[in-house]
């Protein structure tokens, strides 16, 4: 796959392009259906199950997995861990694309997407956590765009503007952390309004805390995971600094992730104790809950710490993949699986293939745009004109 970017005039019918092309085509067909026939024709949503995977995966997982942006830039610019500098740009790019796609996905899900600015500009419903989410995502998307823009400006050769923006790095980073803290946690708090619908093992007053902490290790893991893929397919785009630092980034982030995940586990235990839900662990739901917690949090946390001790990149990558899956599982559990758990199975929601198709379509769009940008703009390398200039 990486060759075709090396040899530009080769046929464009590479396996990657063909598969991506088919997915995008299918996505466009579903898009037409959605906007001519309505949600009913495309999704399995109904009056009891108003939110499906477009919220559970596209919104909740999208935002959590895009947390690498604020985590990496905070590590580098606020905590002064300069050795992670080469990881900042790819992370910011992923975050920016991630959030942009989240907003795109919302256009499919909500009834009248052109009214999405209403809550912010026309009639703010400040009692709603969704309002907080909307406002923060909107502002953070703007922040991410500005944070990402130096790469594009270097590519375009616009030195002055670029330097101006680079000088605002610290302020932007702090702003980004504040906004991320707010909306990452609020996404969890969204479900606090419905204690009668979410299974008690997942419902907790700590939901916002869980969501925020898990966004940190989701972000860290995504940086490692994405780094793995990038190394395989975009190796030739990386400069010596990036290659030299990447192992340190992976191991450093592994260490941080294992600590944060241990913290997450303890807060989860506190949550179970506070609500005294121990007895529920021995039900079917309890087993599912334990699988999420042990198989996809405790296990990768342990793998991460082993990887750090043995300086073993392979394990770090496995741990990252597991953690990413774990965060996806957690978000889907809360929004879809354990939501409405009490309803008879005939009334439960299972996504339609077109819903899944749309989600795959949107992820594919992200990968294609990511590749377009990283093969052209200074993401994995420093632009020769701007080297060591922050």
């Amino acid at each position, binding site marked *: 796959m990486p060759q075709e970017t090396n040899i530009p005039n080769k046929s464009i019918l590479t396996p990657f392009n063909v598969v991506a092309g088919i997915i995008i085509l299918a996505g466009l067909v579903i898009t037409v259906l959605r*906007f001519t026939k309505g949600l009913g024709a495309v*999704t399995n949503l109904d*009056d009891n199950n*108003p939110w499906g995977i477009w919220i559970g995966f596209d919104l909740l997982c999208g935002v959590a997995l895009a947390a690498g942006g604020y985590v990496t830039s905070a590590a580098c610019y606020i905590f002064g861990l300069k050795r992670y500098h080469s990881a900042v740009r790819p992370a910011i790019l992923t975050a920016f694309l991630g959030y942009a796609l989240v907003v795109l996905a919302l256009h499919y899900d909500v009834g009248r997407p052109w*009214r999405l600015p209403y809550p912010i500009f026309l009639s703010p*419903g400040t009692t*709603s956590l969704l309002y907080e989410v909307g406002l923060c995502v909107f502002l953070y998307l703007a922040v991410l765009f500005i944070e990402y823009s130096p790469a594009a400006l270097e590519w375009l050769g616009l030195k002055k503007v670029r330097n101006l923006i680079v000088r605002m790095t610290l302020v932007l980073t702090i702003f980004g952390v504040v906004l991320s803290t707010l909306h990452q946690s609020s996404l969890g708090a969204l479900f606090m309004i*419905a*204690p*009668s619908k979410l299974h008690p093992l997942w419902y907790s007053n700590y939901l916002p805390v869980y969501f925020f902490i898990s966004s940190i290790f989701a972000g860290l893991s995504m940086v490692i995971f994405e780094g793995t893929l990038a190394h395989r397919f975009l190796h030739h785009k990386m400069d010596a600094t990036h290659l030299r630092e990447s192992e340190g980034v992976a191991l450093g982030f592994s260490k941080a992730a294992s600590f944060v995940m241990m913290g997450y586990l303890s807060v989860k235990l506190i949550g179970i104790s506070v609500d005294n839900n121990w007895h529920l662990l021995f039900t079917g739901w309890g087993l599912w809950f334990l699988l999420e917690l042990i198989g996809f949090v405790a296990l990768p946390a342990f793998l991460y710490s082993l990887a750090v001790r043995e300086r073993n990149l392979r394990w770090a990558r496995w741990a990252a993949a597991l953690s990413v899956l774990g965060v996806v599982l957690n978000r889907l559990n809360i929004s879809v699986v354990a939501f409405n758990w009490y309803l008879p199975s005939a009334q439960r929601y299972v996504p339609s293939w077109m819903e899944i198709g749309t989600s795959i379509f949107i992820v594919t769009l992200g990968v294609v745009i990511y590749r377009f940008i990283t093969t052209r703009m200074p993401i994995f390398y420093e632009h020769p004109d701007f080297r060591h200039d922050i």
Partner: protein
Amino acid sequence: MGVTRRKFLGWVGAAAVGTTSMMVPKARAASNKHFEGYPGSFGVLHDTTRCIGCRKCEEACNRVNDLPSPARPFDDLTVLENPRRTSAAAFTVVNRFESDAGEPVVFAKNQCNHCLEPACASACFVRALRKDKTGAVVYDASLCVGCRYCMVACPFNIPAYEYDEPLTPRIRKCHLCQFRIEKGLLPGCVETCPTEALAFGERDRLLKIARQRIDKFPGRYVDHVYGEREMGGTSWLYLSPRPFNQIAMREDLGVQPASRFTSGPLSAVPIVVGLWPVLLTGIYAISKRKDKIAQQERIEAVATTVADANDEMKTKMAELKDKMTREREAMINLEIKKALKEAAEKEDA
């Protein structure tokens, strides 16, 4: 469910109930008292022991709200064989509940309960839903974005959505016939009900009537008025001959209004906004300072090394000089000795 004395509900922040047109929010926000509905606001008392399951209320609702005509006519009572919920085409549905031990069948009508502090309104991020002073929870389709968070939030699973409208879907639910109340008319269903299973009036009065009926016929009713406290209280009130969970009305909802569940995270916002920037700037300053100190130490270390080297050099030079001087002196002495010796030898010769 045991109805205990109303809990002391500390009202934290969040003007809740999501309306601008409210006259009391300020007073409420500042007090520790829990909102008990607008004084004189209306409600409906549904006495299920009087309901005969004729579906006339469904028909009237359909008519006054111009809803699409259903696939099966309203006088087809076989519809009652399957449990139903509200939908975009039916704001109210009557369900039939069989009993096991020869007890009479119970019919119960279901629709929006018009909560005193509605979960749906507190969840709406664009204030498309609000509690009106008539008691109705009303909806403004001209604001609605169609996010469906109100449906997630409603503990009674009431709001429905027009899933087949591609571009202009609305949330659909009972609005207590607010437009009729304002004209002095009864809600469609209440007006039609042939058995007075539905009674419209001020909520406070209805509550008294309900209590009186229970007192008068303790054998006929369970001792509970559903809606008096559920989720902070609702404008619709219910009486039942059987425990409410047997007629599909949840008894595990608690007495707290939904806005209480989210007031915690909402009140954390100012803390994050106020605290984070200060903390982060502090951390930045510390890490900067650490860098600086490290840098300084490095410079100093280099300087000392250089200085040490200099000193060493100097001593070496001095030694060298010393040595050289001494050597030279020795040489001169030697030369002198040699010269003297030579001179002496010449004299001898």
